[in-house]
């Protein structure tokens, strides 16, 4: 069957097809959200909220009851709200840190944690002030027994380091997985697992309380 369309009808049908294609494309682009890279940015800032002055008088040898002021920085670019925990752990130089390749957290227990819900594109900036409250000397090692974190005592730590040198405070980012209903170290983006952690070293060379 052959349609005998006039020249004008032919032009109109061509126009209709062209306009339909253009408008459909514009509608699809408008209604479909653009995929974006999903990530978190985690960092520690010094007392002036910059990447400097991490220790009082820039001296990493921390004495008893000297407050050390840091700011924790976390940016959520995951495309939706996230429920996170930042687990704070005290390690020495020989304790294995988290593994970034396999996204395995440090086996040490956290001495404190920060929980927050962050909306998409929200940045968390929270103060983290700590001091060493009690240490003990045992042989050639110094054992940190108790810390004060944001004016709250944290006892039962028992972290040792030879001569009190090379302690490190580690911040691990854990996210809540809605499917497993558990907190997991790092986050899932597509088929890939990513994780974020950061650390700051210090020495506890103060005279011990025993």
């Amino acid at each position, binding site marked *: 069957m052959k349609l005998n369309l006039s020249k004008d009808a032919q032009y109109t049908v061509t*126009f209709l097809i062209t306009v339909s294609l253009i408008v459909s494309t514009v509608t699809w682009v408008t209604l479909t959200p653009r995929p974006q890279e999903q990530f978190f940015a985690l960092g520690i800032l010094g007392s002036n909220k910059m990447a400097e002055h991490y220790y009082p008088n820039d001296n990493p040898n921390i004495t008893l009851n000297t407050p050390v002021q840091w700011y924790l920085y976390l940016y959520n670019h995951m495309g939706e709200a996230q*429920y996170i925990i930042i687990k704070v752990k005290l390690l020495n130089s020989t304790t294995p840190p988290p593994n970034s390749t396999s996204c395995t957290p440090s086996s040490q227990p956290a001495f404190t944690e920060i929980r927050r819900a962050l909306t998409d594109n929200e940045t968390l900036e929270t103060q983290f002030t700590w001091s060493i409250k009690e240490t003990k000397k045992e042989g050639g090692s110094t054992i940190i027994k108790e810390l004060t974190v944001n004016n709250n005592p944290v006892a039962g730590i028992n972290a040792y380091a030879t001569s009190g040198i090379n302690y490190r405070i580690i911040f691990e980012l854990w996210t809540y997985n809605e499917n497993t209903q558990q907190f997991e170290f790092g986050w899932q983006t597509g088929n890939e697992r990513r994780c974020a952690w950061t650390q700051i070293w210090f020495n506890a060379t103060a005279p011990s309380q025993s």
Partner: protein
Amino acid sequence: MLCSIVSPMRRLQALTATLIFILLTGSLLNSKFIGAKTSIEAADAIQEAETASKNAFKAILEADKAGANIADQASDFNTGLNLLSQAKNQNNTYQDYTAAYNYAKNATEHFNRITLKANQLKDQATQNASQQRTTTYLLAFLVIVISTIAFYFTLKLWRKYSLRRTLGMEIKKGGVK
């Protein structure tokens, strides 16, 4: 003989007075600790608050995915987390189980309120998104139809104009150089 009769009565009176004293003292001591919670009750309340927090976050996330503005809910959620943190602190650091229990119960109520509000926001956002989608599709359809009709009639008018111009032409004698 009289002595032997009075003595048991006095003993009975003394016994009654002692019993009353013990009962009164006991009730007074008890009243001091009315509302005191055990470590198990505090731990249960904290666990309940943890579960409520997960439910609240689930509701917030669903509202977020539906396109609702969840900034206020997220802020309220963080207030609830502070209450939960206080409960844990009282429980673990100070062993004040009553305070821990009260903080945890407050946190649970707080999270339950957030869940309700977030569910309302989700329903509203879903409805808005559906309306917006329908409007966009309708608008796209109208643009296609109106522009095609406009094109067709413009073409017709152009043809008419061309014909009229052709018919209105005058034949002029041209000179040959």
